[in-house]
């Protein structure tokens, strides 16, 4: 009787061998990742590669069981391999302490895997792996948890929805003016404290750039904000003064507010703010310990005076660090000095604007985008992931609809009734695809445009987009002038554009007559390549389907705003708009109004989720109720759950 007796009997020998011989990529060694690595190694998988850039933190230990106290600050990937491998010498585990977005992990690298498991904590990396898996045509098992809730989704190009087929919640972005002039919620004050005030005082100033980019705000208001930023800079030059805390306080809670209050036009339809007197800090004597004890009290809401004490106390701590040589101090929820500063400043600002303050505990969660995470949900989700993975290996991905778990008492798990097919308007998975080999030093955009796109693929009017937006456009309707705008780019090499930006290139057909679908070129670099640029092989690019009625009036106004992004990159913000990247990318399409504009596509059951009666997908029933309603655009129940770091 060997180690493998049990599972060979249960799976049957052919599947058992398939499992053993498959190559698995596990992206992320956090909450779900630890569970998954254990489950994979004990389910007979013979070859697992685990990639994670993160290091171990104390707050991981309540669930990430491959790590111990003595591992804090070490690489998650390496320790996970060490801990899991110790128990299972028969499994080959490869650990990479690296960013999954590194250039070395190109499409060909992804192609080397049989199945890929995402166990990530942020939207950006999820979308990246999704895109690579679609390009490489490797099945992906995507998963996420938040608190008691979790989901698992198997993704395969052409068969299921991909991660980008539905809108995902992205970190909430706020217009500059909401943050700087007209906050109406505590989160606005928190973002102001951590992204504006803290950054201006102790970080790298960004205020002018943000204002320059703002195209929406009222001109007077912007002018005022620029003036404010300038005045604050004068205060900042006194960072070595004992009077610094008071100067900052007077500037931002008294004088700035007075000036703001006097801009009468702004307060016609909202309540004006109430400036704090500059002698606010003299109303009482500071506690003997300078507020040290107070700032430990994180469960109750501080009074305005207490917030003042904490403000003064924390700013002095930050000041000391600055004088001790720390040149840039950025917000980190686990850096208690920055946290205290943000809690105190946000609450003072809330007081000024008549907004309800909160406790340090709560503000930490809001400021740090902290997502609750527990071992149990991760265990359930990881178990489901492996089951979905087995379906993938058996070729049963069409029987693997999304599965959800939540805290509800009348159902422990629920699954959608059928697999959701790809969204034909998806800009990630519903495009034509080719592989493009380049030698980065000599391949230019010009060569791509003239040799490949025009000559080889027969494009006439089109735009070219890379990771940061449109880099070339050619539209005969606009004449030669339009081309000239892009002329400079044509001489740039791929290397000059930046290889990360050029990893995927999208060609959007602008011809009026039967335009073709978007073409996505996945770029693979070849060193010492004898040609500069070459398509691997040509595939047919189908005509674009006649567009359905398009959604009008979508605005991407938030693109210049301030994001409440946390250092750990977690995303739990609430918004229905597309992320910044895709908003930029799709801008041209929006103007074209051709129906492929990346607007939220509300799909109905009739359109896309028809149960053809042949699909033996599971139906979950709870106390006799069939959960046959697929979850659509339901930000609460479904579309994404993510984030366990």
């Amino acid at each position: 009787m060997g180690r493998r007796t049990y599972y060979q009997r249960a799976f049957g020998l052919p599947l058992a061998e398939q499992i053993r011989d498959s190559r698995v990529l596990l992206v992320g060694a956090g909450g779900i990742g630890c569970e998954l690595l254990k489950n994979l190694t004990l389910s007979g998988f013979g070859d697992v590669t685990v990639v994670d850039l993160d290091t171990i933190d104390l707050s991981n230990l309540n669930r990430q069981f491959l790590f111990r106290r003595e591992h804090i600050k070490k690489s998650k990937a390496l320790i996970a391999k060490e801990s899991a491998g110790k128990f299972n010498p028969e499994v080959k585990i490869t650990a990479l302490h690296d960013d999954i977005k590194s250039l070395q992990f190109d499409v060909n690298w992804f192609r080397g895997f049989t199945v890929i498991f995402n166990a990530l904590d942020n939207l950006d990396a999820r979308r990246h792996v999704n895109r690579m898996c679609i390009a490489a045509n490797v099945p992906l098992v995507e998963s996420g948890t938040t608190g008691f809730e979790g989901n698992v989704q198997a993704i395969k190009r052409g068969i299921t929805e991909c991660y980008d087929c539905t809108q995902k919640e992205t970190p909430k972005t706020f217009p500059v003016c909401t943050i700087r002039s007209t906050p109406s919620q505590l989160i606005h004050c928190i973002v102001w404290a951590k992204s504006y005030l803290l950054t201006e005082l102790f970080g790298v100033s960004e205020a002018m750039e943000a204002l320059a980019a703002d195209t929406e705000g009222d001109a007077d208001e912007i002018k005022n904000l620029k003036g404010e930023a300038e005045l604050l800079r004068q205060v900042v030059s006194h960072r070595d003064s004992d009077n610094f805390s008071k100067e900052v306080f007077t500037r931002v809670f008294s004088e700035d507010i007075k000036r703001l209050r006097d801009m009468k036009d702004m307060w016609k339809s909202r309540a004006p703010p109430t400036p704090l007197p500059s002698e606010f800090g003299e109303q009482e004597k500071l506690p003997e310990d300078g507020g040290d004890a107070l700032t430990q009290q994180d469960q109750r809401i501080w009074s305005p005076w207490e917030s003042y004490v904490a403000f003064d106390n924390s700013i002095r701590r930050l000041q000391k660090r600055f004088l001790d040589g720390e040149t840039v101090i950025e917000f980190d929820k686990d850096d208690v000095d920055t946290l205290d500063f943000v809690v105190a400043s946000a609450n003072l600002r809330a007081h000024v604007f008549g907004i309800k303050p909160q406790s340090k505990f709560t503000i930490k969660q809001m400021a740090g985008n902290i997502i609750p995470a527990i071992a149990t949900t991760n265990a359930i989700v990881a178990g489901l992931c492996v089951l979905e993975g087995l379906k993938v290996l058996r070729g049963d991905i069409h029987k693997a609809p999304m599965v959800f778990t939540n805290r509800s008492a009348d159902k422990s798990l629920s699954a959608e009734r059928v697999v959701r097919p790809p969204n034909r308007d998806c800009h990630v998975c519903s495009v034509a695809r080719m592989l493009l080999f380049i030698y980065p030093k000599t391949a230019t955009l010009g060569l791509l445009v003239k040799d490949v796109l025009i000559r080889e693929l027969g494009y006439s009017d089109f735009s070219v987009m890379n990771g940061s937006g449109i880099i070339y456009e050619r539209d005969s309707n606009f004449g030669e002038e339009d081309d000239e705008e892009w002329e400079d780019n044509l001489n740039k090499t791929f290397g000059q554009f930046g290889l990360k930006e050029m990893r995927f290139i999208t060609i959007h057909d602008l011809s009026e007559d039967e335009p073709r679908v978007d073409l996505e070129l996945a770029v693979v670099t070849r060193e010492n390549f004898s040609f500069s640029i070459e398509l691997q092989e040509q595939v047919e690019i189908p005509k674009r389907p006649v567009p359905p009625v398009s959604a009008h009036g979508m605005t991407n106004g938030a693109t210049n705003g301030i994001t409440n992004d946390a250092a750990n990159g977690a995303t739990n913000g609430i918004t229905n708009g597309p992320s910044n990247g895709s908003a930029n990318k799709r801008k041209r399409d929006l103007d074209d109004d051709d129906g492929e504009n990346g607007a939220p596509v509300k799909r109905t059951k009739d359109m896309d989720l028809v149960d053809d009666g042949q699909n033996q997908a599971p139906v979950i029933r709870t106390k006799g109720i069939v959960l046959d309603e697929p979850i659509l655009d339901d930000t609460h129940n479904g579309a994404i759950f993510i984030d366990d770091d």
Partner: protein
Amino acid sequence: MSQSTPPPLHQGPTAKEKKYDRQLRLWAASGQAALEDAHVLLINSGPGVVGVETLKNLVLPGVGHFTILDSAVVREEDLGVNFFLQEESVGAERAAETCKYLQELNPDVEGHSISEPVEEFIARPDTLTPYSLIIVVAPVVPDVLSKISAHGTATQTPVFYVHNVGFYIHFSLQLPPAFTIVDIHPEPEALVDLRLYKPWKELLVNAKKWTWRMENMSDHQHGHIPYVFLLLHYLMEWERTHDGKPPRTYKEKTEFRELIRSGIRTSNPEGGEENFDEAIGAVLKSLNEPTLSSTVKEVFNSPECEDLTEDSPNFWLIAHAVSQFHTKHQTLPLPGAIPDMKAVSADYAFLQGLYKTKAREEADEVLHSVRALEKSLERPNPILAAEVDAFCKQAAHIRLIRGRPIPVISPNEGVAWGERAKAAVNALTDESSLILLHIAFLTFDAFYAQRAAEGKARVPGDGADVEDDERLLTGLAQDIGTNLLTQAERELDEEDADSVKTRLGNICAELTRAGGAELHNIAALGGGLVAQEVIKAITRQYVPIDNTCLFDGVRSLSSVLLL
């Protein structure tokens, strides 16, 4: 010593708070304290993976103590399926080995192990007393399970009974006969009660004051009347033309919304008013009869709420006082929270104060009743006022679950389905229900019990002739099914009967094929599901499953059944 070393400055939360930060955001310090007070007993058997995986998910968040009772010795094949064993473990006591490796996960937790057959362990008096929750992993003989179940009922100790075989998971959760929950963690909006149908005098007076001569107000004033006052204003107007009755039906509420809409000013620069929009939006949500939900009624009508004794748990004393409050005022105590709304800050603060003060008064009234009850019952230790406050805030969501004994199959008498029989029969023909898996597991237990009685305890498929076992198991399962139909006084038509027979046969075949073996991945998933409910039972927060959960890993399908 303590004087010479002052506490370090600015360390922020303690290391423990930091470690548990992500879960404290779910069950708070009170839940964590309950978890740390708990002592969980795992009675392990079979390959023993699901039990250990369950404990892993309790050790990580910091359960106080755990004890593993297991008489097995580690075998080579355990290594391929149990993460918490190593090469060196082979030949050693499994209880001690798994305890050792689990303990390594969290130094805050104390693990204990007992290597002894459960029959001997259970025979000693008071042997189960130290444990606040018991997890029994099948297979065990019915006699043992019955004893533990009876202990659970008698001592209010939650008992879990778990099967994990091949691709299948089952667990039954035996909660105490009266398991009460105050904090079910409803959505924050659910904790708002504006009490618009029964406004108290002060609220009404202010509503009149704030809407007095509305038509003469400036645009700014008009657009900043808090919507609660708007609703009350228009309610009074409505009642004047509707015999003093508020809008009740959907149709009336729609008309009422139109009435509010007629008051919106559109001549202002914004061309509308946000506070009016909020009022209109709140009509369907906030204008509700102050009726009790069925779950609250169940609490108020239960004998524990009526017949208080000196030893009644705090919950019942407070529930009794709240019920008295409800009888007197025809409403539950006011929670006191109000939602965000368009208003001038000072006005919002004023409104907030109105609701807070009223909530305080009402909670004090309840507290007063509680104190009177304590006095008449001669209870020595007063209930904390904070506990009464928390109860009042969540009074509309309190929950009572009547725990039922785990269904135990006796080899001679079969299963007594009792009042569960009819519902079980209805589920038989429902292909998405996993009731047949439940029956198959009952059969699995009967099979084991028969062999144990003959002194050759083994599970189906774990022997020489798998096909014989499968035939036997299927036959037994069908007998249980037939017996269920008899108890429910029902019959199935031929087609349904055939379908049930086939599906039951397939499950029995799969169960036999596994031969009692566990798959690590399924055991890990089961460990997650069981531990999730254990945490709910220990913290008395969120609503636990009532009372049986089944999972079929072949179809990724789960069912929760009330049995």
